[in-house]
């Protein structure tokens, strides 16, 4: 009877250790998937490519839920996540560092602002061609 009890305890410990291992691995993968630098790069490039293919007077709505949530955690206002200066897009969701920048070749006057009526959407507006 004593031996049976030992076997059961050993198996339970073994299973728990395996589960702990799997959980740590999954958490590691998810933490890398949603790391701030990856999100910054993803949105900077995505917005630059959107502007490259856009034509004047277009208005594009972009859902940036994961970036907004991360920025709020880092005490960055959602309005300050994305900025466009001349032809360079900058995305910053971490209070440390400069964020991630990527340029677009389409010589248009593009502006971007956070849509306060929705919780996670940014609006990219192509006002016209730049001279």
């Amino acid at each position, binding site marked *: 009877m004593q031996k049976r009890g030992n076997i059961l305890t050993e198996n339970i410990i073994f299973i728990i250790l395996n589960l702990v*291992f799997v959980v740590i*691995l999954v958490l590691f993968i998810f933490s890398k998937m949603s790391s701030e630098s990856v999100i910054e*790069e993803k949105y900077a490039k995505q917005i630059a490519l959107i502007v*490259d293919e856009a034509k004047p007077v277009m208005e594009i709505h972009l859902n940036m839920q994961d970036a907004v949530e991360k920025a709020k955690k880092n005490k960055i206002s959602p309005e300050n996540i994305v900025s466009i200066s001349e032809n360079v897009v900058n995305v910053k969701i971490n209070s440390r560092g400069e964020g991630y920048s990527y340029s677009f*070749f*389409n010589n248009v006057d593009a502006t971007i602002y956070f849509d306060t009526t929705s919780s996670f959407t940014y609006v990219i507006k192509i006002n016209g061609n730049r001279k």
Partner: protein
Amino acid sequence: MNSRGTDKIISIYWFAILFLVAVACVYLVYSFYGKPYDVRKIEANFLVNQVVDCISDDGILNLETLENPSFLEFCHLTFDVEDFQGWKDDQFYLEIFLCGFDISNGQDLCLSKLNFGDENIPKNCELKSGGNYPFCLERSSYFIDAEQNKYSTKIFVGVKKIEKND
């Protein structure tokens, strides 16, 4: 006693396997997420689209556009880039060949060539396109002009931006 010994050996093997799985996962995650997204192919395609849209209007070639001395400004293109690791505005290359198109013998006779940007990019692309070399793309298009003359254009585009895409 023997059974307990075997269990211990199996347990050591099992944790060795788990360790290998963990190392493989960490390696894969770092090799995938440690590298930047390579968007140069999309960027090059968009650049070609913009040039084609600029030099033609509903398939009718606008020859005056190709003769415009400020072609880039006219086509709303800028090759200025962000300040990053000593980048100067040399991350793009654009080359346009305008050729007459003779259907009878299927040969192109090129009439003119325009090029802008860093001329080293096509030389590097001869070695390799993409990865830690610039990404290059060539596309041919066929047009007619207002007098129904037939033309073919070859548009060659190169995007460097290696540090941010590889």
